[in-house]
């Protein structure tokens, strides 16, 4: 987090940085007006300070979302140059719907990666959830709502099973979830039985999840406005409260710049989506999930515990955190999100099939989280990396499909991108170490 320290420098409230009184022999601290540690690189006021701070962070390996954003910009520029249909409203709208399926699974992966673990079963769990939904609803006539809830619950339960074996019995997560990968895929084939593929009715609620658009212009622009205003308000109120109790706060200029950047992005998206059929329901659901879970990670004590476990299990345990419970719950959440993703994918395809949850789905979900900037080493990352990573992966596959590139090449390129992301992760971890931020 970037904070503006210099505003309150010298103020009586700036306790933590204060030199330790007369016993302190540091001449710089004595004669200077400031009482901060003189070696601390203090950010300058205003926008220039923002830029220098930014540059320093980059050099120390604290790259944040910059590599992904640059990556997305390059990918979009290249494809747009090759085929002007790439940034067309229809293609972007389709892309936004495509993100939701795998992206949802990837959100669960982010939680598992924050723990410093891995979950290889999410693909199979998502396929099984889709099969459960279809069999219950189509074959047995269970009401859709109940079938959806059952599918989600099955995902959460399977995840909890993985978590139990990992956290309570002590089996390495890699092995437990690898067993899950195979077992749940088998169970899915069993559930589907001889039917093979089960189609979901076109007029069903499940289909609507990815087929419905809020077509009024006001919907997309309204959502953009709510997002921008909400972001600004949250930052502004936080900054005001900080100022009130005399701790460093974000200057208004920085909040305005951030809000401005966000506004440009969301209004541009709203405009493009309105050019086509409007705001897709699938995108609304995905973003809502992202906002909620991002809140959980950053602003609740549960999220703090997950991150603590990713940093040091022993320290977390000694702080009184129930390690077993947190681990089981995270795997359960990953299962739940996998099931959710499976339902979204089935909704988009219009069926549950024997191929659901197989192929490169698992790889893409993990790759998205890592490409988006969540560390494989645990304890560092953000729920939003599921969206950013999926934007990269989705853009590549959508662009290549437009250009008629074969699947084989697509796989190789996605593999290359994943490798690049992991390299960035590892290198930035090393640079951060040497810059003392690791």
């Amino acid at each position: 987090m970037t904070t503006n320290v210099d505003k309150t420098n010298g103020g009586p409230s700036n306790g933590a940085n204060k030199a330790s009184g007369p016993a302190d022999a540091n001449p710089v601290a004595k004669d200077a007006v400031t009482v901060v540690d003189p070696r601390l690189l203090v950010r300058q006021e205003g926008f220039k300070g923002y830029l220098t701070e930014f540059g320093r962070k980059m050099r120390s390996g604290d790259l944040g979302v910059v590599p992904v954003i640059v990556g997305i910009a390059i990918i979009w520029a290249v494809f747009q140059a090759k085929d002007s249909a790439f940034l067309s409203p229809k293609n972007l709208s389709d892309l936004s719907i495509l993100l939701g399926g795998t992206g949802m699974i990837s959100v669960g992966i982010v939680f598992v990666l924050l723990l410093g673990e891995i979950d290889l079963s999410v693909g199979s769990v998502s396929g099984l959830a889709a099969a459960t939904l279809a069999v219950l609803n189509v074959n047995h006539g269970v009401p859709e709502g109940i079938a959806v809830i059952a599918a989600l619950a099955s995902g959460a339960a399977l995840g909890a099973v993985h978590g139990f074996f990992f956290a309570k019995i002590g089996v390495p997560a890699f092995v437990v979830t690898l067993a899950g990968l195979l077992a749940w895929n088998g169970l899915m084939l069993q559930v589907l039985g001889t039917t093979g593929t089960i189609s979901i009715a076109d007029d069903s609620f499940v289909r609507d999840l990815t087929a419905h658009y809020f077509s009024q212009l006001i919907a997309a622009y309204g959502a953009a406005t709510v997002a921008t205003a909400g972001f600004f308000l949250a930052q502004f109120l936080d900054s005001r409260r900080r100022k009130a109790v005399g701790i460093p706060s974000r200057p208004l200029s920085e909040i305005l710049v951030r809000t401005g950047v966000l506004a440009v992005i969301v209004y541009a998206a709203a405009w493009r989506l309105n050019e086509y059929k409007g705001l897709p329901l699938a995108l609304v659901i995905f973003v809502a999930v992202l906002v909620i879970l991002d809140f959980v990670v950053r602003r609740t004590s549960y999220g703090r515990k997950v991150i603590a476990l990713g940093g040091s299990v022993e320290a977390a345990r000694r702080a009184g955190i129930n390690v077993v419970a947190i681990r089981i719950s995270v795997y359960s959440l990953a299962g739940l999100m996998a099931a959710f993703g499976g339902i979204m994918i089935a909704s988009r395809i219009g069926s549950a099939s024997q191929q659901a949850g197989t192929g490169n789905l698992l790889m893409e979900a993990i790759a998205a989280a890592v490409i988006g900037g969540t560390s494989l080493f645990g304890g560092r990352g953000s729920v939003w990396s599921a969206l950013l990573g999926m934007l990269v992966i989705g853009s590549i596959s959508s662009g290549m499909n437009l250009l008629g590139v074969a699947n084989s090449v697509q796989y190789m390129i996605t593999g290359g991108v994943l490798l690049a992301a992991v390299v960035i992760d590892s290198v930035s971890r090393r640079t951060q170490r040497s810059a003392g931020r690791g």
Partner: protein
Amino acid sequence: MAIVPNGPVLALRGISKRFGAVQALTDIHLEVHAGEVVALVGDNGAGKSTLVKSIAGVGPADEGVIEWQGKPVQVTRPHDAQELGIATVYQDLALCDNIDVVGNLFLGREILRAGVLDEVEMERRSRELLQTLSIRIPSVRIPIASLSGGQRQTVAIARSMLGEPKLVILDEPTAALGVEQTAQVLDLVERLRDRGLAVILISHNMADVKAVADRVAVLRLGRNNGIFDVKTTSQEEIISAITGATDNAVTRRKARSGEVAK
């Protein structure tokens, strides 16, 4: 000064603990009263940290009873010890490198506001706390990984001061500290005692022990090897208890002749 009840805050009765083939602790007895600083000393590997961990619920003892304010209690998880009011600074610090100073200070006991982490209040209190302890770190919002060893140690000590403990256990708190910071920690220990808290201080530095402790409990090879009153005992006597020569001449001669016989 707070009212000091007669009985000990913490009493250990017959604590034993083994790690595989190593009998790390054998039949340890120890009492700590409110408003008292007990120094726990002993050579490397004597079992001091193991004893601390058994009190803190990190590595529960195999045998023995822990009495808290006169009543036997079960301390099987770190959470149990926290509930009782035992705050511990571990020798290996146990901080999360990836979380900032504020987050580490409040880890496991975050301040909530309407169910949501109250970062502002936590940051304010952290600054206040660090200021009262005269702890100087670049910023409370940088990850622990970017602090020096001594700075980490001061953060770990500050962490134990949150949440109104009744007993504070410091496992070699000054090991990584400079002259000034060591003096501050010793001042802090005295302040804790004056506030009526019980303190267990582990240190290899006899000068520190003599300066702040009321009593010294010596561990040797996992066993009690004497409890001394600091005011009436010379440094040499304590050191000989640590190294194995006991405090009376006869046993000392025996030990010496035993060594010669080897």
